[in-house]
């Protein structure tokens, strides 16, 4: 490791791997990529093989849990990937684009450069989607290979066929392309894999760049502070396996994710003044938006008594319902998945159905308990707090009730067990919601005169030169879909802007 780099990328997550790979394409630019987790090579099979996804999440050392409290005092875990590739190394591989409306919402904060038409070329460059070869909205040569395990024209398992038939009979259409600008209906789920092996941003971006002499990769290293002098970032302080040291940087790019990017900013004195003072941190640059504006997607489970086992793969569900909780909603606002049965001796199989609300009208926040960089930040997710979010989820429950009681799907689903017939559904929502693990927004974009903005539309931190944040934390709202593709997009966008600067 050298004492100085042109660019230091802090966080080898989804976006960090993209940025380090892209910026090191220019051999004249020296790049240091720092990751707190390990960088196991070759990539362990438990990471690479989506069939082992449950084992990866439940048993591997690569997932970190952040306990979050609900208002009733109960808790549920948020997760992050503590390994090179971050979420792209541990997530369920969903390669779902934001909808056109999401880009237009972001353009409201970041200007036309964040709109759908402006970013479509970049989305095409990211992917190789042979299912849509020749399509004007899809790519065929990008690093991220997409595949869909389900085809409407192929033979289908009886419960999947029953779901499709019931939905169609209820007027919900088939949706062949979930990554169209305005998708809706019963969708074949796209995944970032090639021949059934995970294409993380390590596989797609970082691995082909590893041999470059101008790229240094430093795993198992924590950045404790971004050093700022004369209003510009000058480097970072690190704790490496060999001890503490400092590295100078021409540009610091923070890609530590929705929880740790605001944490690192505040540990560096950039953030909410009252918070900095409470923690005894110096105020280097007041920015009231750091750690605020946390958006995510709430998930609720309903469980039915099953008439038979469903052995469908629940980790990589082939089909999902992208539905409107109410026909009057302007956008589809729910993902619905049939989950496989829970089987126990002496009890009928239990069939869970999950509802994932793709809108979040209140905002949570991320705060620090202490100035210890190893201590996990505290997240108030603020899910299902806004009356409209609760209404949408209640409407979603009613939709699932209609669906599971609609033939031919009703052949598989018996009475609802959780919440039971005597339980209050709204209370069930309030006390059992979890997350889709789609947190965004804690360092959101916006112009300099927007008080809640942390970074400008160019992803540069307001008030501090040569400091960029470039991960899902910059997105002002959670998209109507999974977030990994959006995080990759932010990485690509940041890399292009920095390379052009």
């Amino acid at each position, binding site marked *: 490791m050298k004492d100085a780099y042109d660019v230091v990328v802090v966080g080898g997550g989804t976006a960090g791997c993209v940025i380090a790979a892209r910026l090191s394409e220019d051999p004249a630019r020296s790049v240091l990529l720092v990751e707190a987790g390990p960088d196991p090579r070759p990539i362990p099979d438990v990471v690479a093989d989506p069939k082992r996804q449950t084992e990866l999440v439940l048993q591997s050392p690569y997932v970190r849990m952040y306990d979050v409290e609900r208002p009733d005092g109960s808790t549920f875990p948020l997760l992050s990937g503590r390994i090179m590739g971050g979420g792209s190394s541990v997530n369920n591989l969903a390669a779902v684009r934001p909808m056109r409306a999401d880009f237009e919402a972001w353009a409201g904060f970041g200007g036309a450069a964040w709109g759908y038409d402006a970013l479509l070329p970049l989305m095409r460059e990211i992917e190789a989607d042979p299912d849509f070869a020749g399509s004007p909205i899809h790519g065929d040569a990008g690093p991220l290979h997409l595949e869909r395990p389900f085809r409407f024209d192929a033979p289908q398992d009886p419960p999947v066929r029953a779901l499709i038939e019931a939905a169609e009979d209820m007027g919900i259409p088939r949706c062949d392309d979930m990554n169209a600008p305005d998708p809706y209906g019963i969708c074949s789920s796209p995944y970032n894999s090639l021949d059934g092996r995970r294409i993380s941003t390590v596989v797609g971006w970082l691995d082909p760049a590893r041999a470059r002499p101008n790229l240094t990769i430093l795993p198992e290293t924590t950045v404790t502070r971004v050093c700022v002098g004369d209003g510009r970032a000058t480097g970072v302080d690190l704790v490496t396996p060999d001890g503490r040291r400092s590295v100078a940087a021409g540009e610091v790019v923070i890609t530590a994710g929705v929880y740790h990017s605001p944490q690192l900013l505040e540990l560096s004195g950039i953030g909410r003044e009252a918070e900095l003072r409470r923690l005894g941190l110096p105020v280097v640059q007041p920015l009231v938006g750091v750690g605020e504006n946390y958006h995510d997607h709430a998930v609720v489970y309903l469980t039915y008594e099953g008439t038979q086992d469903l052995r*469908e793969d*629940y980790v990589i569900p082939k089909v999902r319902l992208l539905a409107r909780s109410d026909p009057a909603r302007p956008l589809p606002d729910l993902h619905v998945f049939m989950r496989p049965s829970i089987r126990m001796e002496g009890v009928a199989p239990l069939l869970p159905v999950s509802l994932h609300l793709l809108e979040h009208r209140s905002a949570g926040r991320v705060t620090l308990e202490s100035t210890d960089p190893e201590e996990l930040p505290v997240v108030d997710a603020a899910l299902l707090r806004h009356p409209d979010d609760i209404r949408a989820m209640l409407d979603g429950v009613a939709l699932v009730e209609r669906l599971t009681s609609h033939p031919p799907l009703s052949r598989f689903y018996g009475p609802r067990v959780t919440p039971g017939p005597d339980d209050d559904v709204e209370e069930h929502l309030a006390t059992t919601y979890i997350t889709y693990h789609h947190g965004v927004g804690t360092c959101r974009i916006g112009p300099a005169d927007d008080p809640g903005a942390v970074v400008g539309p160019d992803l540069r931190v307001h008030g501090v030169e040569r400091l960029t944040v470039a991960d899902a934390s910059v997105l002002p709202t959670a998209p109507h879909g999974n977030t990994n593709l959006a995080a990759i997009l932010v990485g690509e966008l940041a890399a292009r802007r920095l390379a052009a600067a």
Partner: protein
Amino acid sequence: MKLDGSIEVAAPPAEVWAAIVDPVALAACVPGVRDVRAVDERTFEGRISAAVGPIEGDFSFTSVLTESIFPDRLVVAVDGTDSVTKSRLHADVHASVAEPSAGRTDLRYDAEITVKGRMAILGEMVLRATAGVIIGQVTKCLRSRLETAGASATTPPATTAE
């Protein structure tokens, strides 16, 4: 995670209480339970097998009757570990009985379950429904035993088909 419910039993509260404080009777009502061993008059151990999609595992537990003050307060503490993630689960189950009408019992229960470890990731997907179903089955099983016992003791056999 909190669960609660109630069930009405056609037997007097004292009989219902006697059944739920008896670990042998209680254990016999847990669906799918294996390797049951009564440790003492308040404690039994056992194992439940469950599968979710590709995951199959055992949940080994110890159930201890920690308080029994008729009719208001019965507390059973359950501690266990799953074989897949080695997460630790603790449940405090509270129960009380009341007599809404002569010879009948309203059995109320609630449970507070905490999970330490990765199994918490599957909490709402798997644990809530399974715990709810297990507790529901236990109470239904107890009811059925009590009502059958009561019926054989006090009710003459039916002589006409319905």
